[in-house]
């Protein structure tokens, strides 16, 4: 039985200060989005970077949502890296969209790839 999936969204960031829109669909084999985790290649990129997310047309994160609230360092165990959603967010092939905004920090290396992981599960709404 398939209970967990970690779906990867790759966001290519070409230049300092870039604002990149991303879209996609959740895996339809899973019912719920349980959590989210954002991984950036360099810690300094986390200063001021933001990520918005909309699933099925409903705002999950507004514009200006700080990436630092959705990420953590290497010392955190994999199962504790995720920001967990208290609310029930339907996966089941739902469309998602959002925008990643680079803060244009001096000393960062471009281009890079921001990785957004969605933790999908098959548990029912409680």
């Amino acid at each position, binding site marked *: 039985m398939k209970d967990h999936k970690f779906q990867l969204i790759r966001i290519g960031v070409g230049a300092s200060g870039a604002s990149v829109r991303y879209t996609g669909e959740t895996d339809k084999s899973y019912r719920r989005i349980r959590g989210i985790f954002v991984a950036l290649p360099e*810690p300094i990129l986390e200063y001021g970077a933001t990520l918005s997310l909309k699933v099925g047309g409903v705002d*999950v994160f507004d514009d200006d949502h700080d990436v*630092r*609230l*959705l*990420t*953590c360092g290497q010392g955190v165990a994999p199962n504790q890296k995720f920001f967990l*959603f208290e*609310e029930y967010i339907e996966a089941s092939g739902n469309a998602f969209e959002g925008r990643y905004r680079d803060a244009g920090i001096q000393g960062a290396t471009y281009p890079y790839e921001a990785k957004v992981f969605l933790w999908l599960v098959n548990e029912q709404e409680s």
Partner: protein
Amino acid sequence: MKGIRRLNKTIEVFRPLQVVPIDFRFPGDVSACFGLQATVVGRFPVDRPVIPAFGEYSLEFEGKKIHPVNFIVPWVSQEAFSDATQHRLGILPLAVQVGTSRMITGFYHDLDRQRLDAPPRTSDLQEDTIFQPYSVRFTFHCYRV
């Protein structure tokens, strides 16, 4: 549960010890605020990985009827890896029912901690450390109506 809305409010700080007023209104689809996160957005030339009390803030809800939070905002270096900077910022719990007013007021106060690691001034010719403007981002975690 009808869903959660996470609202962000960003303020700008331009001077040391500046007091920045906070004054805005929750949108109509918010029924309660159950948590708050505050982060300093900026990069400063200090040696230490964490400055625990970088600024302080106070927030009042419902047109100053409810005053649930007076707290500090730390600054955390993203570059200096340590146990203190590896974690993700938690949510400060609140339980504020949002009524008719929807007003949030208060202030953020810079505590002039950017110059903690600057060398002491030894002469009048020595340049003072330049204050770097920064932002403070408040994220309100709210239940939808």
